[in-house]
């Protein structure tokens, strides 16, 4: 078997060196009754060619965004990834290395994590960032837990403009970790006012920028309202390319930012693995979850990096840790860092401008389709459309015409008749004029 180097001769020699007659003796602590007498009922081993065929078969049962026009967003975005990114992350020293617990032989990982932390702080406008989390959604729940610890309060208010998965995950964690989550009703038109809901039991308010429905709002007044009552403002960002053009959370008074980094360097891959970004004010750093990479010097006085402030973490604090987290999303953080290094200031700004321009074109073209109402005045690259028919049907009809036209709100809120005719559409740098025209024409046919 190609991945197993031991030969039968090796095995015999090793058993002899160990001083046992057979492998079974090594399993002597396993009760006889539970030792399997035959291989489990699964297929036998296969060569590379056969395995590839299996996966080609799985792949051919799908119609992906590479093969047709796509306007899907809602927390995951189709962007172009430069060719160098995938080559570099597949270098064995990155791909097959472990967490940098032995810093002398992990300066590569530690240096890119330090660069990553800096980039995340810069684009979000915050003071300090960690070395990544599983995804934006679970990062938002960690942000709430952190706000609870900092304020010693147990009630989080979740905006109606926050991604429904982020809301569900925060609510799930609250239910089982004994803190309260107040879910404001879904806010498709972007007019919600949360300040009145804040009281002296509120630990934080969690909003999204842009909102799940695509709206852009300045949360500075809300930040002040939070701080006046001793609460914190958590801002979630699901589309980080927006930070190339839109006012960042750090400039709106955010205390903690939980973001999804998938848009920069990471393929869609049916929902994972993605990349949680987590940033906060420096004074809160000891309550931050996740790994942190810090600068120091070595025994010869040369600059280097190490994981630091580890006493927050599970392997030391155990039940008193800031979180149970062990793994981060390192390789995805590397992809993000490389892509953002290639983009630079000018590239990220231009990329964001391209996204917005295509979204403006999309909005104008679709507003001209009979029966379609665009609910957004201001937006970055995602809009909410109101349709004259239930959006779920429209999306299926568009798929039959080989267009991934949008995400119906009923996918997230199935029990909500008020939302049944709403659909989210996103445009990125990948949507051509032809694709936009195709979507508009298809909608005209379907509606």
């Amino acid at each position, binding site marked *: 078997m190609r991945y197993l180097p031991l030969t039968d001769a090796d095995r015999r020699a090793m058993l002899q060196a160990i001083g046992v007659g057979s492998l079974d003796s090594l399993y002597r602590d396993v009760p006889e009754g539970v030792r399997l007498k035959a291989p489990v009922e699964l*297929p036998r081993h296969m060569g590379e060619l056969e395995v590839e065929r299996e996966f080609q078969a799985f792949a051919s049962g799908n119609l992906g965004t590479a093969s047709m026009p796509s306007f899907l967003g809602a927390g995951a975005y189709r962007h172009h990834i430069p060719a160098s990114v995938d080559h570099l992350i597949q270098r064995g020293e990155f791909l097959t290395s472990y967490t940098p617990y032995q810093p002398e032989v992990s300066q590569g990982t530690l240096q890119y994590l330090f660069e990553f932390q800096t980039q995340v702080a810069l684009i979000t406008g915050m003071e300090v960032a960690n070395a990544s989390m599983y995804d934006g959604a679970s990062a938002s729940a960690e942000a709430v837990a952190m706000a609870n610890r900092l304020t010693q309060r147990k009630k989080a208010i979740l905006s109606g403009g926050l991604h429904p998965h982020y809301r569900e995950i925060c609510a799930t964690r609250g239910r089982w970790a004994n803190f309260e989550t107040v879910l404001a009703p879904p806010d498709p038109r972007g007019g919600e006012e949360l300040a009145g809901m804040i009281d002296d039991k509120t630990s934080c308010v969690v909003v999204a920028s842009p909102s799940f429905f695509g709206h852009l709002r300045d949360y500075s007044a809300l930040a002040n309202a939070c701080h006046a009552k001793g609460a914190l403002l958590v801002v979630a960002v699901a589309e980080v390319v927006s930070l190339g053009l839109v006012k960042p959370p750090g400039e709106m008074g955010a205390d903690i930012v939980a973001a999804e980094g998938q848009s920069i360097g990471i393929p869609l891959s049916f929902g994972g693995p993605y990349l949680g970004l987590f940033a906060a004010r420096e004074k809160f750093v000891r309550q931050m979850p996740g790994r942190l990479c810090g600068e120091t010097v070595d025994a010869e006085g040369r600059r280097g990096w190490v994981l*630091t402030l580890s006493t927050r973490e599970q392997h030391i604090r155990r039940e008193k840790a800031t979180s149970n987290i062990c793994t981060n999303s390192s390789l995805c953080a590397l992809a993000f860092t490389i892509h953002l290094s290639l983009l630079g200031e000018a590239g990220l700004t231009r990329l964001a401008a391209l996204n917005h321009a295509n979204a403006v074109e999309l909005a104008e073209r679709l507003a001209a389709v009979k029966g379609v109402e665009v609910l957004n005045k201001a937006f970055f690259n995602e809009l909410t459309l109101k349709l004259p028919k239930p959006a779920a049907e429209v999306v299926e009809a568009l798929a039959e015409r080989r267009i991934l036209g949008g995400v119906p709100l009923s996918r997230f809120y199935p029990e909500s008749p008020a939302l049944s005719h709403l659909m989210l559409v996103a445009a990125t740098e990948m949507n051509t004029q032809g694709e936009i025209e195709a979507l508009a024409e298809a909608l005209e046919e379907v509606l």
Partner: protein
Amino acid sequence: MDLSQDRKSRSAGAPAPAAAPSISGNRGLEIEEPLIFEQGQEGRTGVDLPEPRRSAERLGAMRRAGKIGLPGLSEPQVVRHYTRLSQKNYGIDSGLYPLGSCTMKHNPRLNEKVARLAGLVDLHPLQPVSTVQGALALIDRLAHWLKTLTGMPAVALSPGAGAHGELCGMIAIRAALEARGERGRRRVLVPESAHGTNPATGAECGFTIDPIPANAQGRVDLAAFKQKLGSDVAALMVTNPNTCGLFEPDMVELAARLHESGAYFYCDGANFNAIVGRVRPGDLGIDCMHINLHKTFSTPHGGGGPGSGPVVFSAALAPFAPLPWIVHGADGLCLVEHAQAAGAGSKPFGRLKGFHGQMGMFIRALAYMMSHGADGLAQVAADAVLNANYLLARLGDVLTPAFAGPCMHEALFDDRFLKDSGVSTLDFAKAMIDEGFHPMTMYFPLVVHGALLMEPTETESKESLDQFIAVVRGLAERAKEAGAAEAFHGAPYFTPRRRLDETAAARKPVLRWRPPQPASQAAE
């Protein structure tokens, strides 16, 4: 004769001259590499993007004012930068990586290839389900393999890593207890040898942690366990094989006592590599177990992640599994994303992760499983256990094994062999680095003093192990020599950086680059 062409070569006997000091700070292929922020320049870019087709703006008043501060670099500079960084790292591709409980096995490149296939890599998670039947079939197939290998009827695939899987399992237990009306059960029993994530996870779900001591053989003390059982116990969390690399022989008894008293049995599956294909944890009576796809099933560690931590469930806990679920419907496979659609008797406890789980890792793990097959996986476990026992046997005289053998897939030693030498476990590990090996796990599990935990995995050849053994034996002998300690204290000598000052890093944390202050401000 023509002596004008200067082609003298010296014989091997002549002494080699010493090196002159480096001008650049570089030493051959070891190249000093600054941060990207120290190399950027305005006007440089690594991408060529077209002009936007429109100039109209609809950002409200929300346009960003001011610069972000990101550096501009060209593609050649970026490629060179990250290539140089990679050369400072040790990976499984570099050599043996014997980290206990991490299962640093070879990461097959076939898995990388199939994860990048068009029709898989470009799928958006929210496409209409009719357009992704192949993806759902893949996930369903992985679920089938995991359930069959563990002998459990249900699996939740969404957790993003092992610790996330632990959270999933423990919340499911809380949900099950609540459904039975038993909110008073708040105590969770955890062996002292447990990985830190276990008590951290328990505490995060609102449980109080009650540690159980290990017996003299390194296993859960059965008598102590029985004494701690009570009507307020929610669960026992056990790693099996445990963190000392030993199989817990009393699993069936533990399960029986737990279930009898109305509690649940959580199993930490981090060490599944020792028994995969040879023992089914379901046969041991567990109620849930998380599996680390990045350990047992070879998905790459990537410098610390991403991972994937699916959780298998018993029939008792299956109804509480978190969303989303993949179910076989009338029109093919579909995703259940809301509790209302979960069917009668189902009470999913909520959602833990955005979208559906770590699909990229599902693809890699399933490719690994299919490559090995049932026969290959059983051989994986056998070779993993054989390799670890070989290390134990060949090192047991110069190092001090913590427990009598045989071990499972990892061998545990303590630091008694270093007693009075002035060399600590840490020093010993750093000296191994100079010999070209990543050290084994140090100081874990906590129940053993100065622990050294070695897990070679099944993908190491006997030659590789013999080389490792020779080095460890040599270092152990050297540590016992008088006056040897000082050299160990200075290790490593040959790495891109010597030992780093972790105290300074923790006392005055510098967690990001900042542009240097202009000279006049710095002087204040």
